[in-house]
């Protein structure tokens, strides 16, 4: 049962409150509400509403790095002119996210901390080698640690986030010239779909050779997956039909999907192959 309710207005204030322990953080509420209603999660004794922390909102760039505040909504990512121009793959993923009403409330930090293997925003951010900035209160001041997003997820609904830590922002470097990326997601209907499989692929194609290959796949493993073995298979190679066929084989070995209500493991594996073929064709076309 909730005994305390707080509305901090800065990261420092929030970190101090969270350091006291036994707290549930609420932001957009779009995952927390259905999870608590269904009994999948219970509230701690202290409810901390972080929605009034202005420093955690907005999209900015400096010194070739992008920074997206944790409380930035999916709609704000979708409507961002700078992201549409520089990082369209993030905008594409935002466009496939739930429904307009949920996008208006759901925050980036919430989508990452919920750590669903099917989380839509995880995929493009994995392609970008994004890092998450975690704040906590240590010895009288805010301590920040940065964790690569690829190391952030540890299992379904699980992350390296410690009690008392707050995900304040996501950062990534401006991609290299020639960077091209795609995002694909499947489900039986276009809106409000939890992905059956989602895939992002990014690379730079120069003189017919692929470099900087990144492959991220959703809903095929306990966490959003970086397919690093398949990335290595493709790295520095020419993109031809043989290469594409070996990428299909490699990626299908790399995923470990399950059978569930949305699809069979067999179908997810099949779809993974279809998607990598399409993604590589997209890169070849650019």
């Amino acid at each position, binding site marked *: 049962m*909730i005994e305390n309710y707080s509305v901090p207005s800065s990261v420092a204030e929030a970190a101090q409150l969270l350091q006291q322990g036994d707290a549930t953080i*609420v932001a957009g509420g779009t995952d927390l509400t259905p999870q608590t*209603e269904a009994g999948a999660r219970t509230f701690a004794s202290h409810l901390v509403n972080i929605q009034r922390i202005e420093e955690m909102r907005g999209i900015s760039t400096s010194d070739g790095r992008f920074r997206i505040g944790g409380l930035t909504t999916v709609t704000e990512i979708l409507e961002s002119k700078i992201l549409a121009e520089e990082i369209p793959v993030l905008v594409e993923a935002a466009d496939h996210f739930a429904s307009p*009403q949920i996008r208006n409330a759901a925050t980036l930090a919430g989508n990452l901390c919920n750590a669903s293997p099917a989380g839509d925003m995880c995929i493009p951010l994995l392609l970008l080698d994004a890092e998450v900035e975690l704040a906590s209160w240590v010895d009288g001041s805010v301590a920040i640690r940065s964790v690569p997003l690829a190391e952030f997820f540890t299992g379904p609904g699980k992350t390296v986030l410690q009690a008392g830590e707050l995900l304040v922002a996501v950062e990534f470097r401006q991609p290299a010239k020639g960077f091209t990326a795609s995002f694909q997601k499947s489900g039986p209907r*276009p809106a409000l779909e939890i992905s059956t499989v989602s895939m992002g692929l990014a690379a730079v194609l120069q003189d017919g050779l692929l470099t900087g290959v990144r492959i991220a796949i959703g809903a095929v493993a306990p966490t959003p997956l970086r397919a690093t073995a398949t990335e290595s298979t493709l790295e520095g190679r020419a993109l031809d039909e043989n290469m594409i066929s070996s990428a299909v084989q490699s990626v299908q070995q790399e995923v470990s999907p399950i059978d569930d209500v949305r699809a069979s493991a067999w179908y997810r594996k099949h779809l993974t192959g279809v998607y990598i073929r399409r993604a590589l064709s997209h890169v070849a076309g650019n």
Partner: protein
Amino acid sequence: MSLEIEIGFTLNGRPVKVRVPPTMTAVSMLREKFDLTGGKLACGEGECGACTVKIDNRTINSCLMFAVDCDGREVQTIEGLGSVKGLEIMQQAFVEHGAIQCGYCMPGMIMQARYVVDQNAGNEHKVTRDDIARGLEGNVCRCSGYTKVVDAVAAVVLEEAST
């Protein structure tokens, strides 16, 4: 006694104050504390849009929002869309096009339709029927009466573009 929090916000243009439990949802507060029963609690998961209200110029599922987070914000429900003098243009269009079957989803559907048209107002891109359908993809009508809904919204787009 269990914890209650006092909050204050603007509700359909008027300042209000209310005490709510910290985990109460916005839809329950609107229905139980203010008798604003236009917005419905149907799925409770953000899947159906029957609880759609506007908070600070963005529509949200009020079944997913914590009531305490309304503090300091501007909240508009379907009851605040028209006035005692008459229906708002979107409501009138739904009536004229017969875009109603059982009516249960309509308050949320109209709030979202109004938002979709407002969001696109002033854009060079003309709003198409596909844009309208996409804008309403978070609103479910279980009578499945979508065609007349899109007709009604398209009529408002045309009417407002010509004024």
